[in-house]
């Protein structure tokens, strides 16, 4: 195994170069690696086996040093000894001391680097990293020499000189798992969008909140009272607006509600804050009435504009609720502080209230004041379910796959971790590093 190269004291087999081939290697022979762990120095007395190498996966300017514990017990007062790290630009000239530390610090086992980059971390080795800083500049591509000295002030034992070249790396192997997950998830998303295009009827469960629509409309018809539908405070004006997704979802669900009111013959009122959203809703409602076969009952003034102003709009809608006493209120889309005032007034009029939002700060209030609330992603799912739009259905499906994968990973991972703990072996913990984040 590569254990033999550790004693060479040169820069040859540094982890970065070995990276790619060793990934496959380790995946297959992981258990074997651990059998090789106890490689403690048994050879010559006070041999450090110092090794210097370019630190893997960085932009350069950094060198790693590792060496085995010398048998300290041979010394007279082991605890009085310290390590000193020296560096030089020439093989045999001008040594500069970089650091001094006690012999019970800087272990290799403390290194946070995954097994597919670092291999097995021996508990019998020290590790020290030298980095460029304002005092010290390590130039990429230049050869540097290092030695480690063990000393108690009077006696000194020096290691052989090791050398290495800092390099700017092209790939951060520690991020390999991140890249693999990213590629896998991207592929899943694109694949399922394609599948949804071919077959838009991929199974999606019905969102229970949508059943409430039926009942709410029925009740309104019975009582002869209108239904009030709000699309929230989203604008649909430009890019990057967090409220876009939920506002679009709100307009899609409006289509479903309008189909029901058309076939039952209930009145529908949709007060607006944003002109663009209103224009879109007019189209959607008109289409819904057409689809329900009741274009005659469609009225242009079902959608009406109040004002863009937050509190004036809220006061006006509250006024409508108190005067007309709608049988059902729908609050879909994105909401700010107005949610409280709207839901409160609606609750006091005794209307059935159905809310749906991804505005996390408003969710608790809606849940407490409404009869049914679509929580966050449920709102998107409801719109995908109703619209069957491939670009909504596909990602929803792929997100489910992602969630399923992570869920299984978490459950199995925790079980394996527990078993590892019971058996007292670090192997399983190390293997689970594929679900960890490394820098």
């Amino acid at each position: 195994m590569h254990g033999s190269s550790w004693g060479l004291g040169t820069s040859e087999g540094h982890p970065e170069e070995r990276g790619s081939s060793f990934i496959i290697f380790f995946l297959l022979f992981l258990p074997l690696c651990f059998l090789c762990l106890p490689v403690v120095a048994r050879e010559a007395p006070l041999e450090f086996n110092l090794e210097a190498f370019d630190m893997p996966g960085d932009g350069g300017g950094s060198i790693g040093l590792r060496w085995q514990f010398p048998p300290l017990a041979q010394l007279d007062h082991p605890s009085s000894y310290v390590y000193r790290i020296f560096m030089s630009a020439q093989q045999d000239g001008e040594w500069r001391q970089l650091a001094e530390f006690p012999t019970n610090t800087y272990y290799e086992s403390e290194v946070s680097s995954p097994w597919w980059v670092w291999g097995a971390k021996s508990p019998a080795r020290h590790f020290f990293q030298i980095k460029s800083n304002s005092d010290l500049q390590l130039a990429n591509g230049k050869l540097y020499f290092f030695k480690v000295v063990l000393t108690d002030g009077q006696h000194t034992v020096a290691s052989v000189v090791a050398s290495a070249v800092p390099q700017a790396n092209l790939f951060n192997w520690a991020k390999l798992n991140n890249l693999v997950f990213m590629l896998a998830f991207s592929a899943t998303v694109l694949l399922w969008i394609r599948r949804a295009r071919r077959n838009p009827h991929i199974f999606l469960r019905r969102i229970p909140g949508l059943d409430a629509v039926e009942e709410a409309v029925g009740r309104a018809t019975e009582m002869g009272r209108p239904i009030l539908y709000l699309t929230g405070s989203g604008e649909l004006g430009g890019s990057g607006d967090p409220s876009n997704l939920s506002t679009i979802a709100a307009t899609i669900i409006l289509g479903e509600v309008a189909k029901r009111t058309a076939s039952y013959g209930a009145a529908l009122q949709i007060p607006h804050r944003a002109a663009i959203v209103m224009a879109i809703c007019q189209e959607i409602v008109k289409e819904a009435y057409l689809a329900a076969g009741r274009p005659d009952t469609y009225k242009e003034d079902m959608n009406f504009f109040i004002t863009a102003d937050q509190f004036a709009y809220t006061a006006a809608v509250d006024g409508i609720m108190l005067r007309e006493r709608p049988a059902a209120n729908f609050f879909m889309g994105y909401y700010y502080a107005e949610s409280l005032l709207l839901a409160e007034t609606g609750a006091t009029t005794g209307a059935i209230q159905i809310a749906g939002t991804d505005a996390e700060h408003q969710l608790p209030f809606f849940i407490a004041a409404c009869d049914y609330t679509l929580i966050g992603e449920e709102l998107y799912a409801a719109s995908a379910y109703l619209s069957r739009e491939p670009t909504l259905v596909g990602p929803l499906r792929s997100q489910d796959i992602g969630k399923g994968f992570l869920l299984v990973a978490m459950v199995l991972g925790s079980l394996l971790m527990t078993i590892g703990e019971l058996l007292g072996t670090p192997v399983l913990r190390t293997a689970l590093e594929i679900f960890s984040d490394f820098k």
Partner: protein
Amino acid sequence: MVFWKRTLPVAITFMLGITFMLQYYVPHPASEALLREVSVWNQIIAGFAVILGVASLLQSHAQKIKRKAPGWGYSVVMYASMCSMLGFGIWSEGKGEGTAFGWLYTYTLVPLQATMFSLLAFFVASAAYRAFRARSPQATVLLLAAVLVMWGRVPLGEYLLPGIGQVSDWIMNIPNTAAQRGILIGISLGAIATSIKIICGIERAHLGGGQE
């Protein structure tokens, strides 16, 4: 024209998206320099985006004044206060200490915004009394957790019932963390999926604006 209006923007998004997605994995100084430069560029563009956001609001108020729509006088007030803030701001070079610009900020903007948001305290109270009913087992659990947390996070609560502070700490640290973590993982998968759609040109809502 389709090239300029549709193909080119989609191509730009795709190329930059892939480049910066992969940049993350490449520690080489050249790749880092690219990230540095583009992050500075994006900051400058973000400055223009602020103007874009403000301007659309100004437009709607300008129209209100032009049409003499009801309440247009308030729009005039809005313009006047904006212009005075802007005028003093340019004059004092954006420095707040000891300038008229700083005075306007401290005595108009700060109290107005803070007071606006403090109205919500009153609304929460009245909604608590009139609307927040334990109408289902789930809502009951929500309200109970709310009461425990409200009780446990104030000195009087801990004085009346020693130990309740630890209970509310536990709620925050275990069940709340679990649920928020589930939500966070779900939302992040959704956000990543959306980013992928944008990069691949499947999601083009941001390319609205201007006729086809």
